[in-house]
Structure formats: structure tokens, C-alpha cells
């Protein structure tokens, strides 16, 4: 059963940080022989949640002292990705699922990223703790 002690990344709320962190996350997980589905989910989590956060959560805020934390671990074969930020409170789970019955090219773009994460993970939880949004995404790795 795969086990991996938690590792943390601190990001400034800037889009350029996503590639840096995802590059390091991919290298670390691949080096630990984590299946690609887990690496994909970790990358997708950082991309989707951090872009949302920068676009909406930190909009109009002085972000000089702000930061997003990503903590990844594997416990008993379960990949655990925790992303926390000090942006405005935002519960991604409160977003309605996209209507997949609308013709493909007419579907609104919003909400597709969260939809992808919900479908690809086995657990998705949100909490607002100590002034921070905390999203926990888990996936049982085969």
C-alpha cells in the first residue's frame, strides 16, 4: 500500500506559480511511483482551484501578503490533496453542476473545472477554517 509523508508548497496568488508548483508536484509524485491518474488529479486540482481563486477569491485584494498552500500526502493508498487560501470565502461545492443536456457548443464554460475534479476524485470537501478556505480532494489509488 502506497504511503507518502505530507509535502507542502506555498504559492503566491499568481498564475505563473501554477506551472512551477505543478512541475514540482509531478516530479515528486512520479518519483514515488504514484499512478498517473493520481498525478493528473493533483495537477488538475492545483490548476482549477488556484485559477478560480486568483480570478474570483483574490479579485480586488492586495495580495502582497497572501498565500495559497498545497499539501499532498498518501495514506493507506489514498491520495490526499489539501488546498487552502486566504481569499474571500468561496465554497466550490455550492456551484451547480453543468447542464450536460445542452448542445455541446452552447454549454456555458463556468463550472466545468469543478465538475472535472468532482468526477475524477473519490472525495471532495470544503470548509472555512481560521479565515481560510480549505478544500480537500481525495482519491483511492489502485
Amino acid at each position, binding site marked *: 500500500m502506497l504511503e507518502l509523508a505530507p509535502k507542502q508548497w506555498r504559492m503566491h496568488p499568481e498564475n505563473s506559480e501554477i506551472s512551477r508548483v505543478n512541475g514540482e508536484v509531478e516530479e515528486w509524485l512520479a518519483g514515488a511511483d504514484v499512478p498517473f491518474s493520481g498525478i493528473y488529479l493533483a495537477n488538475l486540482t492545483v490548476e482549477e482551484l488556484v485559477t478560480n481563486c486568483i480570478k474570483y477569491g483574490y479579485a480586488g485584494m492586495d495580495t502582497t501578503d497572501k498565500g495559497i498552500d498545497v499539501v499532498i500526502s498518501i495514506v493507506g493508498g489514498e491520495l490526499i490533496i489539501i488546498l487552502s487560501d486566504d481569499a474571500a470565502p468561496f465554497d466550490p461545492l455550492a456551484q451547480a453542476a453543468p447542464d450536460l443536456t445542452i448542445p*455541446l457548443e452552447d454549454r456555458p464554460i463556468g463550472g*466545468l473545472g469543478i465538475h472535472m475534479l468532482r468526477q475524477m476524485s473519490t472525495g471532495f470537501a470544503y470548509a472555512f477554517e481560521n479565515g481560510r478556505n480549505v478544500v480537500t480532494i481525495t482519491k483511492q489509488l489502485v
Partner: protein
Amino acid sequence: MELSFNKVWERDTSGGNIALWIRGDHYALHISGTLDAASTDVVSPALDSILEQHPKELIFDLAELKYLTSMGYRLFLIALKSQNEHGGTVSFIHLQPQIQEVFSIMGALSDLNVFANVAELDHYLLARQKAVERGE
């Protein structure tokens, strides 16, 4: 990309590269690496310039696409909408399992033209052409 196509240009993106291959009025955009928010800076204008030329067939060759995010997926919807407006089509070839999973999650797999390779795509195009000639 198959030999019957000629490479027109290749550009680096933040997480890989893109290359345009042309065979007559068939345009194939090969996307490798990551198609995410950052890479759309390069891919989006390149795709716009392709769409402005109204190709009869637009093919996305995803053989080397490793990561696809919602921002990247959005580009495919833009292409689909634009091609529909002038009677062109969009096809996808060489889908990796993880990309196929994203399409499936988006409920798009049954609505998209997905082919294993160019030979399979050509087989479909030929059958469609014959149907048109028969007036179907």
C-alpha cells in the same frame, strides 16, 4: 502525424508545443504536453487564425497531450462552434486514456467525432462523401 500531411509551423507553449499540419483543406493541429490556462496564451490565438481560414476539416491530434484542464477543453468548444457556423467539422484523433476520460466526464464523447487515427478518419470521410454523392 501521418506522411500525407505537411507541417506548416510549430510553436512552443508554456507546457509543450503545438504544430499545424495541412493536407488540402484538412487542417490538423497537433497539441503536445499540457493544454491549460497558461498554454492558452499561445494556443488560443493560433487556433483563432486557423478557424478564420474556415478549414473543411479541423483535426485535433492529441497523441502527445498529457494534461487537459477545463480552460484547455474550452478551446475545443470554441473550435466546434466556429466550425459549425460555416459547415466545417471537428475531429479528434489519438486520444490518450486520460483525455478520453475528460471528454467522457464532460458528456462530450458521444457528440464528438473521435477516431483512433488518420486512416480511420479518412475511412469515415470517404463514407460521408459517398453518402453526400448519393444525396443522402
